[in-house]
């Protein structure tokens, strides 16, 4: 019998794409023979908008890239501008950045873990993760006044000091967090159906991971312990004791498990940062009108999705000449077309979910 392949559009309106993202799947029965990803539906031109804003005014726009971990997006941008200006950030500000940044990472990973559970078909796990993410958002709301788009970082420091009422709930949250992670492990990770759906599915070999310049839990799931906080510490990360969790097989399951382990490590970092929080100013001496010298700078930080890079070019005016972001979600997505080939259509969701993309960042 003569058969032929057919084309199926997944997205752009599809809940499992975690935003507006389209994959054109060419299928032979249930098996993917070709996948073409089509990003761009959420493109807002943030990089271009930045050219018409002053250096400080760009910060709120970076929030809108990875809106699940806005603090880390802020950080990537201000780090680049600080490098360009040669600003020394005060210690206290660095510690505050670590605290809020890691909290943001926890919030982002909780979304990743929870939504992955939904993608695989377990709605319960999702609710547990979002229940606890709410606590993180409450904490960050106390600090910055917003729940998701914080705009809390400033060039040379942070906008405001940590309020005193922030610490008791933070301590309580850190105390609860290990048992909460055990709950996710019990609910999702240990579930046999979940394991059957994710183990040995969508394997990324370490070589391919490196060749495609993947980063974050997607790369570490393949067993490569490459975490910028460890291998090239920025800020004050060299002062903290934490581990970089890695996977073994590089399958969807390992990538997922890495995230839960990272949540535990983030909690350790926050605990150390709170204990070592020094007194002092939270802003460096920065002129009112920020005019970096003409030149360029590139800074990288480890965001929740991978390596966030920011490239800033200055022509000496108060507005950046060019800003470019290396968005980890976008780069991690580059391997998707090849990764999907040969897998069943149900696995497409499992694989896409395990990459943990956020479309605000993919399209920028």
């Amino acid at each position, binding site marked *: 019998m003569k058969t032929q392949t057919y084309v199926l559009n997944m997205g752009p309106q599809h809940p499992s794409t975690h935003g507006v993202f389209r994959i054109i799947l060419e299928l032979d029965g249930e098996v993917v023979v070709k996948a073409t990803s089509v990003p761009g539906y959420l493109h807002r031109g943030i990089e271009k908008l930045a050219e018409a*804003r*002053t250096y*400080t*005014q*760009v*910060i*709120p*726009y970076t*929030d809108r890239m990875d809106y699940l971990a806005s603090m880390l997006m802020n950080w990537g941008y201000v780090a680049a501008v600080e490098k360009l200006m040669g600003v020394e950030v005060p210690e206290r500000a660095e510690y505050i950045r670590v605290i809020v940044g890691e909290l943001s990472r926890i919030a982002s990973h909780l979304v990743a873990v929870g939504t992955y559970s939904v993608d695989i078909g377990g709605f*319960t796990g999702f609710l*547990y993760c979002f*229940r606890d993410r*709410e606590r993180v958002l*409450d904490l960050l*709301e*106390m*600090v*910055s*006044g*917003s729940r998701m*788009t914080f*705009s809390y970082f400033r060039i040379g420091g942070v*906008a*405001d000091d940590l*309020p005193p*009422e922030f610490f008791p709930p933070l301590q309580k949250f850190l105390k609860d967090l290990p048992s909460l992670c055990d*709950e996710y492990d*019990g*609910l*999702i990770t*240990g*579930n*046999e*159906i*979940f*394991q059957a759906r994710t183990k040995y599915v969508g394997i990324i070999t370490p070589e391919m991971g490196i060749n495609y310049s993947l980063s974050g839990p997607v790369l570490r799931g393949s067993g490569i312990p490459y975490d910028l906080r460890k291998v090239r510490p920025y800020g004050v990360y060299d002062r903290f004791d934490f581990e970089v969790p890695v996977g073994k097989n590089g399958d969807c399951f390992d990538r997922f498990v890495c995230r839960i382990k990272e949540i535990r490590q983030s909690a350790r970092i926050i605990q150390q940062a709170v204990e070592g929080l020094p007194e002092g100013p939270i802003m460096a001496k920065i002129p009112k009108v920020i005019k970096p010298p003409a030149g360029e700078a590139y800074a990288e930080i480890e965001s929740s999705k991978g390596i966030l890079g920011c490239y800033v070019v200055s022509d000496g005016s108060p507005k950046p000449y060019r800003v470019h972001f290396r968005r980890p979600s976008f780069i991690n997505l580059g391997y998707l077309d090849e990764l999907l080939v040969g897998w069943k259509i149900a696995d497409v969701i499992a694989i896409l979910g395990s990459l943990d993309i956020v479309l605000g960042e993919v399209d920028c």
Partner: protein
Amino acid sequence: MFGQGLLKGLAITWKELFTRKVTVQYPEEKVPLPERYHGRFELDVDKCIACGLCANACPNKVIQITKEKVGKKQYLTKYVMRIEYCLFCGLCVESCNKDALKFSHVINMNQFFRDKVRLVLVDRPAPEALPEEEPAEAAAERPAGARAKTAKAEVAAGKAPGEEG
């Protein structure tokens, strides 16, 4: 044994059944907002010197200020926020040296019509002259402030003059 993981998951959900619930019945019950919450803006007209720093700090050109020169001083006649473009980033509040612009805890800014969205914080005619001698200045300033306050109250009630469109 296969199925152990499933049972463990069930045990966790059973345990959760007996813990305190984390949600509230929203419109009747409300979670208190933190001190720094970015809600609707409020302007202390008496403190504002119409310097325009807030308007300059805004990345989205949300704030439109109209001022008139009365005597030797700048007099703020209109302070309109195109709040539909606002990012609630707080750069404007941060830039105000006079502590005039602040966030309130009002979160309900919904309107049925787009032209009502615009937030008019001050809309008043400039007086002929500011009586600048003696402490009468403070007395003269007060009615203006009071008028702005009624304007604010009107906005709160959702019947703000929407002539800005």
